[in-house]
């Protein structure tokens, strides 16, 4: 809604080159950016936002269908169409260029399909081939246009790297229309697009017009690519399709959320790209936008709540700490068990011998337990007592270990001398439910394969998850 209001306020304005008025400091530029005084700036920003949204939405479908590089091919293949559209009436008429480019882009994707169907060439070769050949043909045409004695050709070369500042009112209107059409079509036919993307064969069997849907998606894609050309450029428009969508893909498992997030990331990269290209006086918009999108991707790559690298590293670390704690508790249990459960305190030296570490290390481990209220130490810091909570956990660990060993030997035919290492790992992973299941399957056993007693745990408390 805000976006729409903003657009309405922008559209009537005239376009002037931003770069005409840029001989100022970065700070002043930033202030000017955020006050939206420049009508041309408002146009550029509106265009960037619009293209971010439409590319983000359509890109989500490309990424889930593993067609990311189809976007790349399509965006390069529009170039001859742009040139032909210009030659149509020798002016930079947005509509003629739009039509020409769409036709060329669609033709490109069709040729890819044609090549893979009729020859033994694989899709990657066909994509690369069409991409480069169409682009080469486009360059030949552009070279011919460059020599035509016409002033109005200026700006055509901008569509290679993109300059949002060169956007005119007509361009932005066209962008608004395509974006609106994209949103409308995707929301009305959401479930059709979803099914056709996930499982083409199934979609066909339930009578969906799969080819029509594919065609519609390609059409929207071509339109989105073409209107984005002015701002991002042919060379980089595919990144606006792929990167925001891939970022969203890292963050969510559901298609509808992915669409929203992807559009949002597209919007953010559009805005950031416009901003940075405005700050530096001579910077093309496309690369700025792409780098902004890539920065968002890197952020998600490292910090995504479920799959992010840093998060995973942190989770692994805390799990290792937990495993270490549980192993210390288990060692306390073993020492007491070896003494026939006749006493409660365990000396650090005994613990260290059991854990095969130095006394200092054992002390450090115990201190971690003390911090979690799983154990206490005497004043001299030499003797350890497990708290009731700690003792329960220790019992649970040993029980899990022995149950698992028993399961492996009795049910999975492992030899008794083969099961210890596996149980060492599994004891920390078994939850109460699985433990109950194992006990039932094994008829509530009393002894493990090595003949040791499986402790009963009073008051529950398995491995903490």
């Amino acid at each position, binding site marked *: 809604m805000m976006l729409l209001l903003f657009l309405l306020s922008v559209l009537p304005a005239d376009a002037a080159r931003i770069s005409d008025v840029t001989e100022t400091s970065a700070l002043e530029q930033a202030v000017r950016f955020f006050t939206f005084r420049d009508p041309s700036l408002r146009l550029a920003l509106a265009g960037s936002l619009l293209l971010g949204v439409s590319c983000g939405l359509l890109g989500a479908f490309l990424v889930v269908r593993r067609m990311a590089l189809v976007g790349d091919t399509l965006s390069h293949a529009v170039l001859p169409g742009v040139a032909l559209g210009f030659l149509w009436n020798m002016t930079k008429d947005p509509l003629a260029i739009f039509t020409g480019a769409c036709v060329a882009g669609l033709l490109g994707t069709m040729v890819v399909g044609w090549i893979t169907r009729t020859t*033994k060439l694989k899709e990657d070769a066909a994509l690369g081939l069409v991409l480069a050949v169409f682009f080469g043909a486009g360059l030949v045409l552009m070279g011919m246009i460059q020599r035509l004695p016409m002033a109005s050709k200026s700006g055509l070369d901008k569509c290679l790297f993109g300059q949002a500042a060169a956007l005119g009112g007509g361009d932005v209107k066209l962008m608004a229309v395509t974006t609106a059409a994209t949103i409308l079509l995707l929301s009305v036919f959401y479930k059709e697009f979803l099914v056709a993307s996930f499982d083409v064969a199934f979609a066909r069997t339930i009578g969906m017009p799969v080819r029509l849907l594919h065609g519609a998606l390609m059409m929207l894609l071509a339109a989105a690519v073409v209107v984005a050309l002015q701002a991002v450029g042919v060379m980089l428009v595919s990144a606006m399709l792929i990167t925001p969508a891939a970022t969203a893909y890292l963050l969510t498992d559901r298609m509808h959320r992915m669409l929203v997030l992807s559009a949002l990331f597209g919007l953010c990269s559009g805005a950031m790209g416009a901003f940075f290209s405005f700050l530096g006086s001579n910077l093309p918009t496309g690369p700025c936008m792409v780098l902004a999108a890539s920065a968002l991707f890197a952020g998600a790559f490292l910090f995504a709540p479920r799959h992010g690298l840093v998060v995973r590293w942190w989770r692994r670390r805390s799990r290792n700490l937990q495993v270490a704690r549980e192993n210390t508790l288990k060692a306390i249990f073993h020492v007491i068990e070896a003494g026939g459960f006749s006493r409660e305190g365990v000396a650090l030296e005994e613990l260290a011998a059991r854990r095969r570490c130095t006394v200092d290390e054992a002390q450090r481990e115990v201190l971690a337990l003390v911090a979690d209220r799983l154990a206490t130490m005497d004043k001299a810091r030499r003797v350890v007592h497990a708290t009731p909570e700690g003792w329960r956990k220790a019992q649970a660990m040993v029980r899990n270990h022995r149950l698992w060993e028993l399961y492996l030997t009795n*049910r*999975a*035919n492992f030899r008794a001398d083969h099961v210890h290492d596996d149980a060492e790992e599994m004891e920390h992973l078994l939850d109460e439910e699985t433990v109950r299941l*194992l006990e039932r399957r094994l008829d509530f056993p009393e002894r493990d394969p090595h003949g040791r007693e499986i402790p009963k745990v009073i008051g529950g408390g398995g491995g903490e998850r």
Partner: protein
Amino acid sequence: MTPALETHDLTVAYHKRPVLYGVDLAVPPGHLVGIMGPNGAGKTTLIKAVMGIVPPVSGWVKIFGEPASRALGRVGYVPQRESVDWDFPVNVMDVVLMGRYGRLGLGRRVGAKEREIARACLEKVGMLPLADRQIANLSGGQQQRVFLARALAQESDLYLMDEPFAGVDATTEAAIVTLLQELKARGKTILVVHHDLTSAQQYFDMLLLVNLRVVAFGDTAEVFTEELLQKTYGGRLTILSKIAQEVKNQG
């Protein structure tokens, strides 16, 4: 006697999900061994782990008493037919010659001697008349024979074959069986991943039953029993697979 193939506690995981647990195995030389088990039981994985194509998480492999990496020259490998691109621009002869490449040094070209060996191997599988054919223009059975000829050209002592009988015609199947018997008679050891329970007894003198771990290994007469097959193919390992899933989720 040194086992032809020996593994100890061989465990393999894909994406942290274990697909093969603690395999202990000692295959005596001169036997024709069938590897059997349900889909996803780790049969192909076992072969690939032996070849060093997938790295194991733990355990080791010895081939004729040597670490596998040093003894690979004595192993011939027949992959599943789907694993290669049959549009590749090579003909039957080229594929069989590849079997000799391991014995040629870096930069050495194929010579007359190699061609002679390749021709003999093609003759053995009855494919010599088609030596100049592009490989896409072969039937499924013929493609399988080419792979066998290539393995023969490797002149190995241990052969690992991944489903050589999958999707071949009856004539080819009979030809392959004859060939395997002949190899065995020459003292070679052959491990074959096999699917068809009905023919297993007839083809192999030893059987290895696999389902995530070794269920049974021994002479066909001893191993091919109702109980062991039930154990291999029946769903008694639900907890094991459930927990494998959980381990995976824990990352």
